[in-house]
């Protein structure tokens, strides 16, 4: 093989590219880094000011408002249990990381999904990119993230955003495209603009599907917390990672169980948020 085709130095090119980016856009990356760090650490500080029991009750009430009483009860007991195990602060750190990541994944993912739903050419660009984002091992883009954003919570956020965005984009596209053709025709026949068609008919009808995508994004982002802790992101993931490196099985389980509890709460609550407010009967 070597003799027929000269080995192209892809790895070198990529290294050089990353170096060039770091040198050229260093200040931009620093700005982004400070911004993200500010958001995550700020929200942790802010949440930590509230006594843990009161915060657990507040979260439970929020869950009740969005979903059902059973889920609210589980939220309360689950959070108090985490507090009891002594993982309250790491839990808050993880929550801030996850929610920040998901927030940016949605802010970018939903518009991209809408764009993709409207144009076939856009889909041709987006789909392979999504495949790449989902299948490329997360560690691989964790590395350049360190160069761009240093060690700490920020590369963790960036990696989580990249990893968790695809379901939101895919399901937004799918949901909008699944709106029956005759409804689209009806909106057109009455003289809707593209935006009116999207905002009044397509997006509302796609909402359950989009929410399923949001739910998946949250779950994927949670699955990234342990990996993010390898580049220094604090939180429950860090506890698990430390337990693994020090072979402390018990501690690992405790921290892992806490992650599971948070995951179940977020999953159930967002699933219900998608189902609720579906006035009347949908086909």
């Amino acid at each position: 093989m070597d003799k027929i085709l000269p080995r192209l130095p892809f790895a070198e090119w990529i290294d050089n590219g990353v170096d060039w980016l770091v040198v050229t856009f260093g200040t931009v990356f620093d700005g982004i880094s400070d911004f993200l760090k500010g958001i995550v650490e700020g929200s942790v500080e802010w949440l930590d000011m509230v006594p843990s029991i009161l915060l657990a009750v507040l979260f439970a009430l929020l869950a009740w408002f969005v979903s059902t009483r059973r889920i609210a009860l589980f939220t309360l007991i689950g959070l108090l249990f985490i507090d009891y195990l002594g993982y309250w602060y790491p839990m808050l750190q993880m929550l801030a990381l996850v929610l920040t990541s998901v927030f940016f994944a949605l802010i970018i993912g939903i518009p991209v999904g809408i764009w993709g739903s409207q144009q076939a050419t856009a889909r041709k660009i987006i789909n392979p990119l999504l495949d790449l984002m989902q299948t490329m091992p997360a560690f691989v883009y964790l590395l350049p993230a360190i160069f761009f954003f240093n060690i700490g919570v920020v590369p963790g956020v960036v990696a989580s955003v990249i990893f968790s965005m695809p379901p939101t984009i895919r399901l937004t596209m799918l949901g909008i495209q699944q709106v029956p053709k005759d409804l689209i025709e009806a909106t057109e026949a009455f003289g809707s603009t593209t935006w009116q068609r999207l905002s009044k008919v397509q997006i509302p009808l796609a909402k359950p599907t989009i929410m399923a995508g949001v739910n998946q994004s949250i779950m994927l982002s949670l699955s990234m917390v342990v990996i993010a802790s390898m580049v220094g992101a604090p939180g429950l993931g860090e506890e698990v990672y430390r337990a693994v490196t020090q072979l402390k099985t018990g501690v690992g389980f405790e921290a892992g169980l806490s992650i599971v509890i948070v995951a179940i709460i977020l999953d159930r609550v967002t699933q219900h948020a998608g189902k609720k407010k579906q006035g009347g009967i949908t086909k």
Partner: protein
Amino acid sequence: MSEQIVNKKIEVINTTKIFGKNAKRASQLLNEGKSKGEILKATGATVGVKNASFDVYEGEIFVIMGLSGSGKSTLVRLLNRLIDPTMGNILLDGEDIVGMNKEQLRNVRRKKIGMVFQNFALFPHKTILENAEYGLEIQGVAKAERQAKAKESLGLVGLAGYEDQFPGQLSGGMQQRVGLARALANGPDILLMDEAFSALDPLIRKDMQDELLQLHNDMGKTIIFITHDLDEALRIGDRIALMKDGEIVQVGTPEEILMSPSNEYVERFVEDVDLSKVLTAGHIMKKADTVQIDRGARIALRMMKKLGISSIYVVNKANRLLGAVTAQDASLAIEAGKTLEEIMITDLPMIPQDTVLIDLFDIVSTAVIPVAVIDENNRLQGIIIRGALIGALSGDNQFINNNGTFDSDEKTDTEVKING
């Protein structure tokens, strides 16, 4: 049936729609006179509508009829450019919509044309009222005003009180009323109805047809109605365009389509029509022989003898029907010196001109003398004789009058012989 209206609301001029990538090449072949199948084979493009030309007059119900795949749904979508025509012009109030930009087209869709869809196409996440408001909402009409208009048009279709329900909670017929109300709320001049009643079961469909005719009567909108159901077309259409393989085969009034099919296809299409439900008394009536009441029995008898008939109708000077006399009664009257008034039969079978044949069977079968057809002022228009009734049902054109009215110049001397 249709009143004389000259205003052209829509003019479709040589309009063609070709689906597929090779539209240009396909339209070339089309101009060379190749058929739909040949073009599909040569280019892979499908001819949806082929060189359609017709006018729709203001205030009429224009039915486009054809079997599935005949291009009727494509044709109706060309009228508001949900599908862009490949060639041709479509004039709406004299303005060519084919050349319009997006903005102009949107305006036409918002103000001039309403559309009703086969499967209703209601927005499942909006209430009935919100559905009916939609057209006005996207025009930016203030909420109070658009709700008032939407309620008004829901009232028109008999759905007052259902405003806060969701489409999924209503039956098919009611959903289509919402579809109709949504289209009417904008106050368009033209309604496009794409197989609007095809998804409804027969009884409800008939009700909806009646209500549509009533609405049309009250509001005078121009309606383009697509259907694959000939009975429906004949029932509601002022004029019908029949389509086959993307081509318009014939345009005409229901009578014209039935009575003088322009080719074999139309003929085959209409051969199964139940003529007894379509033809009216006006179609089969013959000129009546009458005698004025002051003429006396002798003259009546002489006329009957001369014409070879056994009974004759008695009218006054205004041609108002008074009764009838038989030859037997007339000769008895001459002997007894009685007047016509004394001997005439007044208990006559009388029917209005627009009675359909199916309702005539009973009357005609029991009547001793031919059944009289009268207008609303009791004036004699013509008579129905059994032979003509049977002849018309067999589809024989010589027994059928052209426009459902009687041609007074017609010579009837030969036909009256079979009277009685």
